[in-house]
């Protein structure tokens, strides 16, 4: 299938470049529908890889790249459910999203994230599977999970540790603060910072550039440079599920979902 248009995302293949575009309002929150369509995408990826050298991931929404997990859906699904049953549901979701993330991470294609606006939580974790990150200057990155009594659960910590210094990771995680594109480039997360609205165009130029090289060589270089931290990823799921049983999580989720505060996204 060379193109697909779903409820939360779409993809196309043209000139050796696959473009995966997120379009679920309000800000591409990742819930069960997005997960299903991401699974459809990664299921099709081996076929697309035969005709492509690069994959661009981006958002079609003005608010940004992705605001992370769909906390409202998580709250609705867990509300009133026995804790062990809710935790089993969460673990199943995490296992599935990890498989998606690991598949994208391990793809032989050169993957390019073109991001703008909000790149929070699971959105940052999706960005972190990309080989190259091109951020427009409106981009803002954050791991706000600790305010919910949780840690990032879509593979964020092991992938952030893989790419950045541990002190930086601790700062971002333990303060839950957000940071801008310039800072993202300074700490080595974003490879390029571009003008507002230019990330996708620059990502396409970058995809054309990487297409000049031998595909197998690029794939071998990527595999060598970007090992997937499978053991830590498994441990992350375990820790997340342990923390999910805490009363603080219910309180944090309820506060977020029921908040009339004008600043629910401010950590």
């Amino acid at each position, binding site marked *: 299938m060379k193109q697909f248009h779903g409820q939360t995302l779409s993809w196309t293949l043209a000139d050796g470049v696959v473009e995966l575009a997120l379009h679920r309002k309000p*800000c591409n929150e990742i819930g069960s529908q997005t997960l299903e369509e991401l699974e459809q995408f990664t299921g099709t990826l081996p076929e697309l890889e035969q005709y492509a050298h690069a994959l661009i991931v981006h958002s079609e929404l003005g*608010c*940004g790249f992705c*605001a992370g997990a769909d906390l409202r859906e998580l709250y609705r699904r867990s509300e009133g459910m026995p804790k062990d049953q809710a935790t089993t549901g969460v673990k199943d979701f995490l296992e599935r999203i990890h498989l998606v993330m690991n598949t994208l991470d391990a793809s032989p294609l050169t993957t390019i994230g073109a991001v703008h*606006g*909000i790149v929070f939580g699971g959105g940052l974790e999706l960005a972190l599977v990309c080989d190259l990150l091109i951020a427009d*200057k*409106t*981009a*803002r990155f*954050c791991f706000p999970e600790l305010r919910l009594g949780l840690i990032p659960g879509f593979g964020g910590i092991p992938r952030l540790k893989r790419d950045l210094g541990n002190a930086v990771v601790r700062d971002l995680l333990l*303060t*839950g*603060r*957000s*940071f*801008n*594109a*310039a*800072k993202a480039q300074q700490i080595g997360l974003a490879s390029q910072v571009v003008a507002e609205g230019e990330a996708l165009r620059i990502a396409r130029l970058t995809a054309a550039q990487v297409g000049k090289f031998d595909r197998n060589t690029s794939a071998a270089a990527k595999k060598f440079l970007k090992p997937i931290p499978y053991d830590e990823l498994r441990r992350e799921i375990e820790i997340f599920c342990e923390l999910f049983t805490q009363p603080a999580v219910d309180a944090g989720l309820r506060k977020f979902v029921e908040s009339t*505060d*004008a*600043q*629910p*996204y*401010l*950590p």
Partner: protein
Amino acid sequence: MPTEQQTLDEVLKLAATQFKIPRESLTPDDDFFKKLGIDSLQALSLLTRLEQHFNIELPDYEMQGVSDFRTLAERIQSRL
């Protein structure tokens, strides 16, 4: 270094430009969420714009509970 008044003027000017409202309609003690009609995500985009303009890093936890331009300008001034 700019004075506090100059910083406040710049903040008001940038907010007016970003959210396309007349600068004259904003006053230092306005609640910017209400006056600009913005939510927390748009507030973060304003924060990004302010960081770029003043060439500072302003952790967003310093913004928690801040809703008027004067206090926002004070927080920025402390980082200049």
